[in-house]
């Protein structure tokens, strides 16, 4: 078996990432600077964290479209608790995460008890959470968060705090997926729900867990975004759900469920970050950026499919 091919298939997402990095460093001398690379990480971290949560739901064979609205809602509520109610920042942040988990559980509840398709249940939640955000903020941003909160949008030395949080989420989620019964059951459920049910896997609990986790990471994303903007925005993160799904898919997950890793998803988010940053540095107009982004997205997926197919054929041959 061709060793290189195998590695290429396993890490095709990373290869695409590498390819883009090489391309852009040729196109712009400023791309490969340390500072710029840190920028990209900083810019992609929030998306990556939210996308890791979405990856959980996608592995289970579902999807979570509510994350963008949840980012806005949890950001607004944590900010509101601090600014309007004088709650200490750490408690407000924990509260926001709790709220995210809770709404995730509500999503999961609609799916497992209400038997709604995940796509629609979370689509409805997307509208509801956005509405709640507008209602809560009365349409105005909330600022004046204090140093503790905004520190999460800053750096420690040269390293963005968001990147450290991402690292933590990446490690935690990898352990959950690869080493815990919950993780194994999540994959099993996504691979063949009927079999998982017959094996006595607590399907409902596992699904609830996946959506709760996604809600939690969305809340974490909401906090980081708010910290980064020093204010909570009622219209924050509109459309983030599609970006998160795109990152997950670029990272090798299957929308059919049963496959995906958080490392892959982080690489997917970085691909999108590198693309946006690189196109900005090379000065491509914003309209054309969309054309290029759409095209590269499709090409990347084709490449990923192609390397995987090679690998599968090798495996069988």
């Amino acid at each position, binding site marked *: 078996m061709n060793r290189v091919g195998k590695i290429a298939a396993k890490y095709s997402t990373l290869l695409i990432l590498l390819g883009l990095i090489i391309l852009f460093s040729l196109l712009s001398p400023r791309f490969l*600077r340390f500072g710029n690379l840190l920028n990209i990480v900083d810019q992609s971290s929030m998306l990556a964290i939210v996308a890791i949560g979405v990856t959980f739901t996608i592995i289970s064979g579902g999807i979570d479209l509510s994350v963008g609205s949840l980012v806005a809602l949890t950001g607004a509520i944590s900010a509101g608790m601090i600014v309007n109610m004088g709650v200490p920042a750490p408690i407000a942040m924990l509260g926001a995460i709790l709220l995210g988990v809770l709404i995730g559980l509500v999503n999961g509840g609609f799916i497992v008890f209400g038997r709604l398709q995940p796509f629609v249940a979370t689509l409805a939640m997307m509208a509801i959470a956005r509405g709640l955000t507008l209602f809560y903020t009365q*349409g105005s941003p909330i*600022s004046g968060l204090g140093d503790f909160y905004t520190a999460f949008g800053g750096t420690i030395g040269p390293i963005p705090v968001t990147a450290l949080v991402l690292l933590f989420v990446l490690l935690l989620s990898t352990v959950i997926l690869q080493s815990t019964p919950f993780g194994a059951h999540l994959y099993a459920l996504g691979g063949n729900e009927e079999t998982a049910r017959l094996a006595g896997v607590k399907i409902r609990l596992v699904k609830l867990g996946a959506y709760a986790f996604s809600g939690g990471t969305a809340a974490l994303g909401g906090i980081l975004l708010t910290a*980064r*903007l*020093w204010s909570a925005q009622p*219209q*924050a993160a509109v459309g983030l759900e599609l970006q998160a799904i795109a990152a997950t898919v670029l990272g090798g997950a299957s929308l059919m469920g049963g496959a995906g890793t958080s490392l892959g998803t982080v690489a997917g988010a970085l691909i999108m970050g590198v693309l946006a940053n690189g196109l*900005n540095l090379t000065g491509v107009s914003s309209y054309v950026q969309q054309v290029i982004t759409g095209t590269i997205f499709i090409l990347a997926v084709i490449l990923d499919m192609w390397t995987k197919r090679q690998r599968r054929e090798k495996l069988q041959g």
Partner: protein
Amino acid sequence: EGQGEAADGGIVIGLSVSTLNNPFFVTLRDGAQDAADLLGVELIVVDSQDDPAREASNIQDLIQRGVDALLINPTDSDAVVPSVQRANSEGIPVFTVDRGASSGDVVAHVASDNVAGGEMAGEYLVEAIGGSGSVVELQGIPGTSAARDRGEGFNNIVGANSDVSVVAAQTANFNRTEGLNVFQNILQAQSDIDGVFAHNDEMILGAIQAAEAAGRADDIVFVGFDAVDDAVAAVEDGRLAATVAQRPEEIGSTGLRTAVSYLQGETVEDYIPVALMLVTQ
């Protein structure tokens, strides 16, 4: 750092626009671009697509590119603050256009005042309907500063006038299609409407379509905001009574000229108002 990388070593200016999906800002960008071409300055434009997170990233990227000055049209005055401060710490001068920044060091702010514009529209509308009657407010995307400020200005006037009542205040998200549908629905509920104010021209143009289709356009006074080409044409045709002109081209070019002057060592005012103007027939 801080020196531009234009081939001839000339000035490079970064412009961050809140969204290029709206003709208003496209015109603003064009104004800046024309001025830049005239002055022989390189202009790099990035588009936040109304997303403050994207804006933060874009401005980071502009700083990476080593622009000499930043011209920012923020998606939101609060959300842009960390970006302004980041530029400040890199020693890059910041200028804001159309919308301001709540804090941070901004060399100059070039804009027309949206609250004042809302008041201007309100005053015109009240007078046009003869000092009393029922009016409708079509609001912009909830949570955006333009919607907030224009609504505030409008309500400052209308709310103070006990003879005028706002019978419906609904959002049509700065969008023409929604302006059409939402106003169509409002027409059903309100048999008596004397005037409409919309937070931008897109919505008012949609509303006019709805009223014309319902045969009620002649009874209603329409006032918009922005004076985009379509709206100015509608004013000329007499379909639209008035629109508040913000002169985005002027905002863009003044912003750019101000930045260049500053970089060339001149002193500039910290607030450069671009006068609002009511466009009527």
